[in-house]
């Protein structure tokens, strides 16, 4: 049996926000609400959810950047609340986007600086830095300033930076965000290779296919709560028996979408905005009965390409998070 590396029990985190320009009113935002899960050694665990679901807050607590308001979290057996000195040398944190690097320094200088902050011996630095640059395919651009790198190169440098201390646990917060499909694919290949090196990885993403492709298990988080936790195959079973009525609509008003959501027998309603039209997806277990209802609601509005298909993992996800992706 594999040992548990991350243990999260009833984790709660609240933030206080202020509203108003002159008379400021404080209000409490509950970002995490009794979240519990555990991650085993060598596992690639995914936290999947829409923006603002609580993914980044969870990662920030586990990486000792934030303190929990209530509940308990341990990493490698150490309490994040009071044992940050024991946790920090053994973990690292990589987030998506272009921030988090010194743009005016070269890629090599960035790695050297973070190696110093992780108290890596200079002999090890001399060996490890070129190895990491090679791993992420930046060896030939190592001495160029980061500001001259593409988004994908910066993200790969982030990965190298996150591996500088050879961490036992790696936290990846939406690492492929903003990357083109090729760059995202390359990055996913690197992440996959990390688990083959025995790293435990906690990945947050709001891309369903990414979690499906990479993760051993996925927790779907929504509004600060775990909505489902299973293997990708297990989550797909949530969509068993579910069908999706899909059609292209043109300028369908929001009140009609709300009206559809209230119809008995409809499990979920999702709308995707395209350039000239919208894709309306309606999850149901009784497509034969619901299809005429949908047509009746859409009566008077232009729609085409009306069809019924089997539900996918993404549909199961949308059902759980209420189409808020």
């Amino acid at each position, binding site marked *: 049996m594999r040992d548990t590396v991350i243990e999260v029990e009833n984790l709660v985190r609240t933030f206080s926000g202020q509203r108003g320009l002159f008379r400021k009113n404080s209000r409490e935002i509950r970002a995490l609400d009794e979240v519990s899960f555990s991650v085993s050694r060598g596992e690639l665990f995914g936290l999947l959810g829409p923006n603002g679901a609580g993914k980044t807050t969870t990662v920030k607590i586990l990486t000792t950047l934030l303190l929990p308001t209530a509940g308990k979290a341990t990493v490698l057996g150490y309490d994040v609340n009071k044992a940050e000195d024991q946790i920090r040398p053994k973990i690292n944190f990589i987030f998506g986007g272009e921030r988090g690097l010194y743009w005016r*320094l070269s890629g090599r200088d960035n790695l050297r600086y*973070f190696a110093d902050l992780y108290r890596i011996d200079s002999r090890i630095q001399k060996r490890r830095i070129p190895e990491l640059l090679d791993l992420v395919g930046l060896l030939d651009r190592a001495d160029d300033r980061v500001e001259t790198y593409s988004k994908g190169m910066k993200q790969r440098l982030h990965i190298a930076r996150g591996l500088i201390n050879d961490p036992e646990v790696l936290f990846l917060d939406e690492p492929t965000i903003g990357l083109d499909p090729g760059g995202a694919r390359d990055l996913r290949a690197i992440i996959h290779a990390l688990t083959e090196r025995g790293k435990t990885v906690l990945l947050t993403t709001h891309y369903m296919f990414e979690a499906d492709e990479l993760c051993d298990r996925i927790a779907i988080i929504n509004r600060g709560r775990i909505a489902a936790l299973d293997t990708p195959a297990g989550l797909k079973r949530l969509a068993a028996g579910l069908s999706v009525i899909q059609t292209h609509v043109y300028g369908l008003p929001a009140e009609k979408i709300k009206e559809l959501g209230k119809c008995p027998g409809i499990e979920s309603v999702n709308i995707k905005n395209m350039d000239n039209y919208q894709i309306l997806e309606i999850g149901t277990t009784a497509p034969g009965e619901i299809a005429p209802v949908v047509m009746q609601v859409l009566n008077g509005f232009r729609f085409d390409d009306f069809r019924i298909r089997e539900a996918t993992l993404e549909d199961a996800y949308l059902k759980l998070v209420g189409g808020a992706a």
Partner: protein
Amino acid sequence: MKGDLRAIVGTLRMQMKTTFSRATFKFVVLVQPLVYATISYMMFRQSQNESFMAYVVLGTGLTTMWSSIVFSSSGDIERERYNGTLELISIAPVPLRTTIYGKIAGNTLLGLFSMIYSFLAVRIIYNVPIVIAHPLQFVTILFLSILALVGLGAVMAGCFTLSRNSRGLMNALEYPVFILSGVMFPIAVLPQWLHPVSYTLVMTWVVGGLRTSFGVPALPFSFGIIVAVLACFIVGHFLLANWLFRIIERQVRIKATLGVQ
């Protein structure tokens, strides 16, 4: 310990590299002293050589050093926050306070460089001989001044780490301090009721001490008293900075002020 020392040197190296690559900093170090020197030269050209030395040369050098140590040390935290690197350096095993002291050390070296550059620029452009009447006093005060300003830079950096709203404090520390501490003119010309305020500012004692070493006393106190007051400022700043860093490391994890979304 060895690892932390390497981290301080690494931070110092990074700090100097990134700072030198910023156009604004090049302006502050290379152009601004010439502008200050020219303005003060126009103001003081009718006065005696000693006053010119004490006000133009020192004033120019000190304003640049003040900006470099105190301003940059606090501004760097803001820059790191918006770059997304403040969170990363905060969760590194080397304590955040060590990293911040490394940054201040880098800024101090740059500040000293800009002060020497200012002295040389004034010497060359206006052909004013730089004569230090009491070199030992000068070295003593310069050493104490650097320590006091490093301590103040640490306090400022601490305030910035804890709060994103410290910019007002930072802005209040430039021209008002130059006026109140008598960088460009003696505080004697300020209204009497402002003098107690001036005496609460470390810069007043830095300027007063250095002028005394130039043979142009600007404060109604002996050299010994100036040294003692500066020593008190050093102890006070470092105690305050250490207290701030102790509470900051936990408070930032509660208040979530290390990053911006």
